[in-house]
């Protein structure tokens, strides 16, 4: 009994000692900076793509605009809304949700907190009557993925030696089908006789985090003749890179892959033809800047080639993989799209 009391007291004492208020590290000046909260998608920070790109945008705003930022990684489905709400309740000025999956959650919280500004990347809320416009205190950041995809599709077809190019999508939803549609259209535009192989990893959120499935799909497409594959599949795409990496030696001809969202050269150096970048960081940074400068407006904002919201990578790394002719041809296409002479489709025929 005495020992029981003794140990209990000891434990309590230890905790008190550990929890004694320590000297607080001074958190900057008196002026209240703009507070920005970012809630990641499940899968979260470190996906080397979408979420990280959003993080870079906020991070840039922290460094260049002097805003204060907090990040939340949700644990499960209900944490998404909780996370947003937590930030809203703490009086954050701008709250960003990364991914279409936030559409419903952000929509409902935004309606409850009309004085807080919200931003949803890839917003897509539909009801029985179709697309639902975001509330006035919320901006929907959408991208013309089909335009960027069109360019990499053209590049793929121009680079392919077999005349077959592949596409691996994550979850089979209209958002991802936009990638495929643009990609296929770009390829066919420059090479009407080419063939486009397409496959999806699944129909749930898990389809974005299944590298094994990605590799399986990629290997099948390579086997049926494709020598360039474009992936728009989150971390599932890492499997596509894995498949590409296992080529170019031991008698296997070089197989290429095209990255998505961010420059993914480092995932399989020498095998990444290019990456169709979705400048989420640009969109995020622009949104923070708009709030900072007091010109935030709700509604849908679309980032295309014209707004430099989408692009493809051409730098020292992959210069050797892309011929100058191909490069010139694709740049010409870019101008045509910006000028509106070519319209990249969002649905594949």
């Amino acid at each position: 009994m005495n020992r029981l009391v003794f140990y209990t007291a000891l434990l309590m004492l230890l905790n008190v000692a550990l929890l004694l208020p320590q000297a607080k590290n001074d958190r900057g000046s008196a002026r209240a900076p703009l507070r920005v909260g970012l809630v990641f998608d499940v899968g979260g920070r470190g996906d080397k793509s979408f979420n990280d790109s959003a993080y870079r945008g906020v991070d840039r705003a922290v460094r260049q605009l002097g805003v204060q930022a907090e990040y939340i990684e949700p644990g499960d489905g209900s944490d998404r809304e909780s996370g947003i709400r937590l930030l809203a309740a703490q009086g954050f000025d701008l709250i960003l949700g990364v991914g279409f999956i936030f559409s419903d959650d952000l929509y409902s919280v935004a309606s409850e907190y009309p004085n807080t500004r919200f931003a949803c990347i890839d917003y897509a809320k539909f009801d029985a009557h179709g697309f639902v416009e975001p509330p006035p205190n919320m901006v929907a950041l959408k991208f013309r993925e089909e335009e960027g995809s069109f360019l990499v599709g053209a590049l793929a077809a121009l680079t392919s030696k077999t005349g077959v190019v592949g596409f691996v999508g994550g979850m089979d939803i209209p958002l991802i089908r936009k990638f495929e549609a643009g990609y296929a259209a770009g390829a066919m535009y420059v090479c009407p006789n080419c063939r486009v192989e397409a496959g999806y990893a699944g129909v749930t959120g898990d389809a974005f985090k299944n590298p094994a499935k990605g590799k399986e799909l990629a290997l099948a497409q390579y086997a049926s003749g494709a020598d360039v594959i474009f992936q728009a599949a989150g971390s599932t795409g890492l499997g596509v890179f894995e498949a590409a990496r296992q080529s170019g030696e031991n008698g296997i001809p070089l197989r290429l892959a095209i990255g998505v969202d961010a420059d993914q050269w480092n995932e399989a150096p020498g095998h990444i033809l290019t990456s169709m970048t979705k400048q989420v960081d640009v969109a995020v940074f622009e949104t923070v800047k708009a709030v900072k400068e007091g010109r935030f407006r709700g509604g849908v904002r679309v980032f295309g080639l014209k707004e430099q919201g989408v692009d493809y990578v051409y730098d020292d790394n992959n210069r050797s993989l892309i011929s100058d002719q191909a490069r010139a041809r694709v740049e010409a296409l870019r101008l045509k799209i910006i000028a509106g002479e070519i319209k990249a489709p969002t649905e594949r025929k």
Partner: protein
Amino acid sequence: MNQAGNRTLERIVPPLWALLIALGAASMLIASIGGNPHQVLGLLSLGTWRSGYGFGQVLFKATPLLFTGLSVAMALEAGLFNIGAEGQITVGALAAALAGATLPVGTPHWLAIFLCVVASFAGGALVGGIAGILKAWRGSHEVITTIMLNFIVRAAMVGLGGTIFLRESVHTRPVIEAARFARFSQWLSPSLFKGSAVNDSLFLALLVCLLVWVFLNRTTAGFALRVVGASPGAAEAAGISPGRVTAWALALSGGLAGLGGCNFVLGYKYYYEDGFSGGVGFMGIAVAVLAFGSPLALIFAALLFGTLSQGGLAINAVVPKELVDVLEAVIIFAVAGTKWPVRRMLSRSSSKISSGEKT
């Protein structure tokens, strides 16, 4: 010290120690990654018990844990280890969502709720029952079958998703208004629980807790279940068929887990959403193990894990969320590890005192 007092201490002290140890471990962990324990734990408590919203969220998160914890605990009473609560709650939630969305709009509130709750139970019971029947007929070990059923459910959802989910989403159609549980913020205290998703399914959970206790301790079927769990040999001699009891016990256990889906579907989002469960099925195992078969302790355990889950979100801005996972593990280890030494100390001290009195 009398025996009853000892037994109470034996119940209370180990979790208390576990909590203190976990708290100490958390403080050290936070300090080791350069954080300030005082600040972080302050944030944690503010994000949970010290604010209306946080408290509501703790209750909200504890609700499905009560169901899955109960599910696992009930199976344990029958000597079965149900690892399949995750798959069972998934099917339960989907069943409730589909039932609620199919009902005609004019359905009376009580009937709609009743039908959806029954659907969720049936959904979970179906999954649990498969494992039960396999065990009773073929002797397949329930740990294997329930785990495999988790994967099967997962795969089935992937297959189903395309046909039942709304456009550009990973969720189903919403259930009709009548099939929705009222939120606390709607009737209890709109200001206190503002925004929190805690809803009346919490009462369903508490009611089911009570019913399960009554079932196990007051009905002959519950007795049969406990006998099979305690001694299959004695069950045989008593004319209780262990196989049959195993089959329906796992179905029942699955049904309880399935009910957990109501919290999310009927009380929060009003639709089934892919990946909603976030591991509450597995967390239920921890809850049940922590509770050591006591219904009251089950409630505390569910609240504890609900607190950690919500608290993890609240402190996510300053520390990585993995820290909370580590904390959960520390608590489980600590409870398991302190029970024995506490009992030892109690028995030693009590016998010393008493024999001292008499000599």
